[in-house]
């Protein structure tokens, strides 16, 4: 398909569900789609489902028009089978492309959400009350509303993060000049002008979709070039859980699928409020929602590139907010990855989110807990993995730097075992040689592996004395990364975009 792409990490997937359990969940989802079916607020989608054999009847209820759609199992199965099992998410640099293949559990990690808040970190000196000679540095955090400049900064930083494979705009742009009309063009431009990795986002408004595509075509080098190397893709949360197809988003699905660009059908029910909290119920429902969404894409255009987007979360039972860093989150998510693999659709999954409001031990616990577990699942595309705090409400660049180190170590940890017959023969030779020496030390024989990158380094932000300077060290490292120049688009390309795409903020040209 393509020869040059990011390596990600190839894992041996951990599967939580037995074959029987998988079949029962699949059947339960099909049963849900048959009865009670889905509540479809899009007339166009309802009509399309009906044309392909679904039972559709208009709901007799006050409010917006709604059609109740009952899917025959065969319709869903047939449509889902048409979704491609392998697809490319392009990038400005060919080596940054992603190859998603359901036969190959290659895991990629990237950002996610569209947080309203950017969390800036500064260190301040504090003096001990007991001993004024004792000073310590304490991180102080400032919340800033997201803006195009900050989104540009996020993209530029993420370009430098070695283990970050793709960029979903992590920040909502809220400059005074940003309206619902120019939101999409500005967020895509701010991203594409500052990162050479794959860029993905949802659409705020369908009105400027064509302009976003035009911008991407200019950067990619034309219409065909963009379809061959889709440097952008989209996320559509077409379902409002439980089981309701949203009219506005359904229209976006039609437009994106018709454009030929890749799309994530994402669903994010909350166990305990908009879905059952029990594993079987949650997974059966989210799977039903995603399957219906995938069915819609394949009925619009057979073979449309689509990702199985599973973001199941659990409710906190004290305030009904989302609870990410908990065992159920992992269980729901890993089941979904297994189901996506069963349907042979690349999986957009979730890890690295938590309740922690600032970087620190809680954030580290919650993130590691999900990063590591979900990476073992073999999900092709794990979003939310960098920089998010306060659930998905806040993007903190310092946290993204800390997450980069964590994700890097996880990728290393999950590398395939280097145990071939040649390796074991070499090992025996080495043991004999060392045991014949006077000192019996293997250190010299560690060199080859050490210099080839097979051996990991210590934690990048460690402190050697009895202090915890992780945040200080990570901030210094971040400053070095941010001092690197941005990988801006060529000025001719930028000028062409500004000529053809209205509504771009003038200051973004160089931001």
């Amino acid at each position, binding site marked *: 398909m393509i020869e040059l792409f990011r390596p990600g990490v190839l894992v041996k997937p951990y599967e939580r569900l037995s074959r029987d359990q998988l079949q029962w969940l699949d059947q339960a989802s099909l049963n849900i789609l048959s009865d009670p079916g889905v509540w479809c607020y899009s007339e166009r989608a309802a009509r399309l489902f009906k044309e392909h054999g679904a039972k559709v009847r208009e709901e007799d209820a006050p409010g917006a028009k709604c059609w109740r759609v009952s899917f025959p199992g065969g319709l869903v199965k047939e449509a889902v089978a048409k979704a491609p099992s392998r697809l490319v998410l392009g990038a400005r640099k060919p080596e940054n492309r992603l190859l998603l293949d359901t036969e190959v559990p290659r895991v990629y990690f990237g950002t996610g959400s569209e947080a309203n808040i950017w969390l800036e970190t500064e260190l301040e000196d504090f003096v001990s009350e007991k001993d004024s000679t004792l000073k310590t540095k304490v991180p102080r955090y400032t919340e800033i509303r997201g803006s195009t400049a900050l989104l540009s900064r996020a993209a530029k930083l993420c370009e430098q993060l070695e283990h970050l494979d793709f960029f979903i705009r992590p920040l909502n742009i809220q400059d005074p000049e940003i309206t619902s009309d120019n939101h999409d063009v500005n967020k895509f431009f701010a991203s594409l002008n500052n990162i050479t990795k794959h860029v993905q986002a949802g659409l705020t408004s369908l009105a400027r979709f064509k302009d976003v595509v035009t911008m991407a075509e200019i950067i990619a080098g034309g219409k065909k070039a963009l379809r061959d190397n889709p440097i952008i893709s989209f996320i559509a949360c077409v379902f409002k859980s439980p089981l309701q197809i949203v009219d506005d988003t359904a229209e976006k699905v039609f437009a994106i699928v018709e454009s030929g660009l890749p799309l994530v059908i994402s669903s994010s029910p909350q166990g305990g409020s908009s879905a059952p909290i029990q594993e079987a119920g949650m997974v059966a429902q989210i799977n039903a929602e995603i399957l219906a969404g995938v069915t819609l894409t394949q009925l619009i255009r057979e073979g449309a590139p689509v990702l199985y987007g599973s973001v199941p979360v659990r409710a906190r039972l004290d305030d009904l907010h989302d609870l990410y860093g908990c065992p159920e989150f992992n269980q729901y998510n890993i089941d979904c990855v297994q189901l996506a693999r069963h349907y042979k659709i690349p999986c957009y999954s979730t890890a690295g989110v938590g309740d922690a409001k600032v970087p620190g031990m809680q954030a580290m616990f919650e993130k590691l807990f999900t990063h590591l577990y979900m990476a073992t699942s073999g999900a092709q595309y794990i979003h939310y993995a960098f920089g998010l705090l306060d659930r998905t409400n806040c993007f903190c660049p310092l946290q993204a730097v800390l997450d980069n180190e964590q994700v890097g170590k996880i990728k290393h940890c999950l590398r395939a075992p280097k145990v071939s017959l040649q390796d074991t023969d070499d090992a025996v030779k080495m043991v004999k040689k060392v045991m014949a020496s006077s000192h019996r030390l293997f*250190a010299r024989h*560690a060199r080859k592996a050490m210099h080839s990158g097979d051996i990991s380094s210590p934690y990048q932000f460690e402190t050697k004395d009895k202090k915890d300077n992780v945040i200080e060290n990570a901030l210094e490292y971040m400053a070095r990364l941010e001092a690197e120049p941005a990988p801006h688009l060529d000025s001719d390309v930028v000028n062409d975009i500004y000529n053809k795409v209205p509504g771009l903020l003038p200051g973004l040209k160089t931001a």
Partner: protein
Amino acid sequence: MNTSELLEKIAFNVIQGRVEAEDDGFDPGLEGRPAVTELVTEALNQNIDPKKILMESLTESMETVGEKFEKKEYLIPDMLASAECVGVAMDLLAPHLIKAGVESKGKFVIATVKGDLHDIGKNIVAIMLKGAGYQVIDLGTDVSVDRITTTVKEKQASFLGLSALLTTTMRVMGEVVQKLKEEGIRDRVKVLVGGAPTSIEFARKIGADAYCKDAFQALEIMKK
């Protein structure tokens, strides 16, 4: 191969950390080519002055390795590999250097004390010292007080390094120092102690001359 090429190759292989031809090096693709053992043997066969080999190949290359370590280009395994190369070369050169009237930097007896079988740290120190030009007499592990003091006496060693990992065996180091005094040779030998449970305070308490946190500190102290 002429003399300067041969000396250059020895230095190169020390930096690459290749003791024998079958060893791989820091750079890829060196396996199978002559390494320090083969090249030093050839140099001696060609009657190249052993002092020249020592000064122009071994000493200079170890300085380069030290610089690379300082710059963090090299890590401890690289340093040890190069030190091991120099150690092997010194074994080959020793009889020739003695004939030429060149002495080592001094005799260094090293041992893990009685009751203790841990020797990783002790071995690293031994390799580094040998690589730095000391004549190292390694007595191994679980070595009795008598054997240590007898060896120091018989070999007329100027330095003694004692290692222990256990709090239960570190006290034997004090017994060694006491025995050296009883034998009347304490003033002739500098005693260095090391190992996880030891400390500067412990070294002072038992009457040792120095405490070494690690192999690098041992080398620093020896330089002084």
